[in-house]
């Protein structure tokens, strides 16, 4: 699955478009603990998390993560504006969904995205 195609999944709101929409997602990782993400997530991965603060973007950018999906977000207005601003600055693709982490991961998996331990 290409990172640009995430925008077209149902129930996904795109907050920041990917700079390279044709980039193939290299795998998926989900965690709300930033140090775990730092330790395990790889370049080009899609990261699914509940966290919405700007440090999510810092972590994603440092790891060259392809994009971040923020889950259980019923109202995108509640996401810190600094997070979206920073994502734009750092060119980190950012998506939000009201759905739960599990549901989104299941959808990504059906679209062919594998977990990092399967890839």
């Amino acid at each position: 699955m290409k990172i640009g195609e995430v925008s077209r999944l149902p129930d996904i709101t795109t907050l920041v478009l990917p700079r390279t929409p044709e980039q193939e997602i290299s795998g998926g990782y989900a965690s709300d603990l930033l140090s775990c993400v730092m330790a395990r997530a790889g370049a080009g991965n899609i990261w699914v998390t509940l966290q919405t603060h700007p440090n999510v973007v810092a972590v994603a950018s440092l790891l060259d993560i392809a994009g971040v999906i923020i889950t259980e977000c019923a109202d995108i207005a509640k996401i810190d504006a600094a997070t979206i601003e920073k994502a734009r600055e750092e060119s980190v693709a950012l998506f939000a969904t009201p759905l739960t982490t599990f549901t989104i991961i299941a959808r990504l998996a059906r679209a062919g995205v594998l977990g990092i331990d399967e890839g």
Partner: protein
Amino acid sequence: MTAIPEITKVQELIYELKIEQVMSRPVITVTPDTRIDQLKEILRVNRISGVPVVQGSKLVGIISIEDLIKALERGEMHSTVGEKMSRQVITVNAHDSVVEAVKRFEEHGVGRLPVLDSSGQLVGILTSGDITRGLLHAIGLGYHQEEIRRYRASHIFEDISSDRTSLILCYHIPARELQKAGEASSKIKKALYRLGAQPGFARRVAIAAYEAEMNLIIHTLHGGDLIAEIHPDKVRLLAVDDGPGIPDIQQAMQPGFSTAPDWIRSLGFGAGMGLLNIKRCSDQMMLDSQVGVGTRLEVLFYLKEEAVLGEHLSSTS
């Protein structure tokens, strides 16, 4: 959300570029008493489709090929520009961003915009073709300048002669300022890319720098310094603070051990993995700490044989 993302650079440019940088000049003009059949020749010879009309130094109207065709249909080729021109002229200011012109083209559906300077003098003319040309030129130029900057940065150590040259980046990391967390690490990573580091190497340093930066933010009394020493063959990362100090380093190194407060944990920090992450992605790690004095973390990353920072980039890429 259907915009084409590659347009981002162009979007930036239409805000950055000024109208005076892309407009055409000098401007071909006519006067109100120019005859329509003369206008036809002026348009044909200059291969243009419209001209501003000036009287003295004042812009009084604009006339286009459409007005000419209408006059031709009516057999009024001997009438004057003054009779056929539009008197309501939409103009732009030379110092405005190109985006202003784009808005005006969209809003009024006109083919060209006379450009005025701050004193209201006609200084140029702008068509959508001028904007396209200006953008293409700016993208080409931007690309070229970026290449030069990258080249210069990646060869920085070549021109400087000493027995040992290094580049030292120092960042003061304030305590408890989570909003800015990751900024220093991100800058270190960008500097490494500039110097020609491979992505894998830059990532290793960035992960360690981030964890060290977070530790300074979360755990120190007064913040601390994060220092990256970039050598041609290695990077040395130092994180130094003046307290409170770690009582038991062995315990601090245990996976999952954390002294982070709950509010920090609720944000996803303080999982007790930081020091472990640093150790895992570095080649050497030294941690000294004394309670009441402070902590000093030193981390080393060695470049593999062929890879060198700051020189000979062209031979490896």
